[in-house]
């Protein structure tokens, strides 16, 4: 894997325990500029925990984390916003960094929610909110993006479009992406490196390598590995969230 100066974050045998129970243990991985690293694994396998270790949210960890950038965009898996706060989409976009109007509008347009800019966050649907979360994370043009199931609750066509957007962002901004996803189709079509977790790293490598791995087959089943090996997709148009069709 590339030269050292491209590394954005590196985990060395990192682990985290809560109430004497290991959530995840012995994870080594690195995210480099322009590369997409995907974490897969069953529920409770420590994917989100690994992301939080990489982000420095969990501090009392086993092993070590080396982080070489402070420009980070994060889409958490779960986020609860307190409605005692009157917060519009526009206010939420500048939560952690001040941005000019163009950057805000550009990011909201990319994820297809520019028309919601002045709406209250509490009035958004789950999928709309997810698009706003992604827009907020990319608007600050981060060097490292950590996306924890970024398209949950987004409609099917939107899901594909957003994953293509994520791939595009990684190319254009040359940022590294740590992605957590349940969608094996996407994982395999867009990812450079896959880490399969189950409380520990059970296997890792390129999508094809992982698909052939026996431990992976044991975790996800024979069918999953077939998905991987023949998956390839192409689109000639996208559907915006307002229902319009745009040619690529």
């Amino acid at each position, binding site marked *: 894997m590339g030269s050292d100066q491209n590394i954005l974050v590196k985990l060395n045998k990192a682990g985290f325990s809560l109430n004497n129970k290991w959530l995840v243990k012995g994870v080594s991985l690195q995210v480099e500029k322009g590369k997409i690293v995907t974490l897969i694994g069953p529920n409770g396998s420590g994917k989100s925990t690994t992301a*939080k270790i990489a982000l420095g*949210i969990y501090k009392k960890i086993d092993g070590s984390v080396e982080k070489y950038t*402070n420009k*980070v965009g994060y889409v958490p898996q779960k*986020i609860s916003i307190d409605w005692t*706060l*009157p917060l519009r989409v526009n*206010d939420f976009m500048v*939560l*952690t960094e001040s941005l000019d109007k163009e950057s805000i509008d550009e990011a909201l347009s990319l994820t297809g929610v520019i028309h919601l800019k002045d709406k209250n966050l509490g009035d958004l649907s789950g999928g709309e909110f997810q698009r706003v979360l992604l827009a907020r994370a990319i608007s600050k043009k981060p060097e490292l993006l950590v996306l924890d199931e970024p398209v949950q609750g987004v409609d099917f066509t939107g899901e594909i479009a957003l994953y293509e957007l994520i791939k595009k962002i990684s190319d254009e901004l040359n940022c590294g992406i740590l992605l957590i996803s349940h969608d094996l189709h996407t994982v395999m079509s867009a990812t450079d490196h896959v880490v399969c977790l189950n409380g520990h790293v059970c296997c890792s490598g390129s999508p094809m390598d992982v698909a052939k791995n026996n431990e992976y087959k044991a975790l996800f089943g024979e069918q999953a590995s077939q998905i991987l090996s023949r998956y390839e997709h192409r689109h000639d148009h996208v559907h915006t969230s307002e229902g319009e069709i745009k040619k690529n």
Partner: protein
Amino acid sequence: MLDDFFIRALIAGIGVAIVTGPLGCFVVWRRLSYFGDTLAHSALLGVTLAYSMEFNIAFSVFIISSLIALTLIQLQKRTNLPGDALLGLLAHSSLAVGLVVIGFLSFIRFDIMGLLFGDILAVTVDDLLIIWVGGALILLVLKLIWKPLFASTVNYELAEAEGLNPDRAKAIFTILMAAIIAISIKMVGLLLITGMLIIPAAMARNISSSPQKMVIYSIIGGLLSVILGLFSSLEFNTASGPSIIAASLFLFILSLLNIKQSIKLKN
């Protein structure tokens, strides 16, 4: 009609309201009203110590309230007791100790009512200085920590992940809370300070659509409460604290009417 003491009280009250406006919004957003109460109760101990050692009241209250706040943070880390139990423990024990100390200070004439409910007659030129200089400092620091504090109020993990250091912002905010209680205790009294923080902010929440607007309305609400409250306090010879808080309650009720109207408009 406008005696000198009244002008002083008005200037003091306006200074307090400008600071309680934005701080009060954070108290509402972060659900800290009982934390504010706890600090205010502990202020009695600060006042008694100030009297017994002939020390400045605001300064002494600031020290004691900060100590209580730090104690709370330590207790939260080291015990398994729930937050509200710890708050109750600290609030009532510091109040009790304060009252016991007053018992020992029988040689000093104490205006307990003034202490609990505020006394506009007691505001001196020195107090004005403390309120305006202290208030300006509080607002300056709040402006500096606004981004991390606000971001972590919305979502702690986002703020932490994107490098804003929310823990430091929280600790500094705690100190600011102790400071506002210290400078406003003479005006509003220690039983009602939290009301001054919460009620204008709650009123503002009812009529605002963005955080910035809520802060501005909260300041305006506080200013109107102080002016209305102090004039009625002078007119009806009532204690200043309760008069100001009652005025803010009046404004809060008005803001509820506004909500009803907008709901009607929607349907």
